[in-house]
């Protein structure tokens, strides 16, 4: 199994998204980089991305939706009818 380390420029998002959307559980297997990608380095490691691009890729990999504490708390208060008029 080949793993890759990429520093992703936003111009490459489309290409990499199409590649990564076929992955399961974030495991990279038999990846062939079929064209040169500027600012890209390949190493024996897991994917490394800028924080912004990392978020995009995790979404593309069907990461579970984010939990927002305020939203969850407000929902629980709603369900428990803790607000009185």
């Amino acid at each position, binding site marked *: 199994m080949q793993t890759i380390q990429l520093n992703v420029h936003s111009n490459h998002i489309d290409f990499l998204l199409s590649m990564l959307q076929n992955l399961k559980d974030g495991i990279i297997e038999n990846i062939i980089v079929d064209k040169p990608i500027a600012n890209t380095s390949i190493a024996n490691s897991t994917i490394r991305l800028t924080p912004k691009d990392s978020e995009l890729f995790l*979404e593309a990999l069907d990461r579970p939706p984010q939990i927002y504490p305020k939203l*969850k708390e407000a929902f629980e208060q*709603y369900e428990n009818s803790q607000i009185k008029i």
Partner: protein
Amino acid sequence: MQTVQLDKNRHNRKAFDCEVDALNDYLHSMANQHSLKDNTRTYILENSENPSDIVGYYTLTMTTIELSKLPPNLQKKHFNNYSSALIARLAVDKKYKHKKIGSWLLIDALKRVLNASDIVAFPMVIVDAKDGVAEFYEKFGFSLFLNEEKKLYLPIATIRANFGG
């Protein structure tokens, strides 16, 4: 506490005052007409001891999604979807400020939106925040559309996950 659809014969619309003219005017004179024409639905939180007294309200309808103003991952995910729920208005009477009624109404609205999306699928809810209230929605996970200062969205999947669905 529960919300009910606006009933002009039951609710004293004219007495409602949230200190924002546009939101007051809408409830006073337009909400009922829009509902009769099936353009919007307005839901009222009544004072439990005096149902004619309106504590707060929100209005729901549908709108279109400007896909180009979403992050690339959401553009890809929803590339052929253009419809979204819209929380068009949400307001609390000044007598009931600072009691977390706004949060309660927002959750109530999101629950209705989530139920509707289970029947007729759409991918997100949008809100057009009035001046200074975008931060209120951001606290609950809403994100601003690209290059927008008042228009925010929240994916249905996020609502479902946070509501334990």
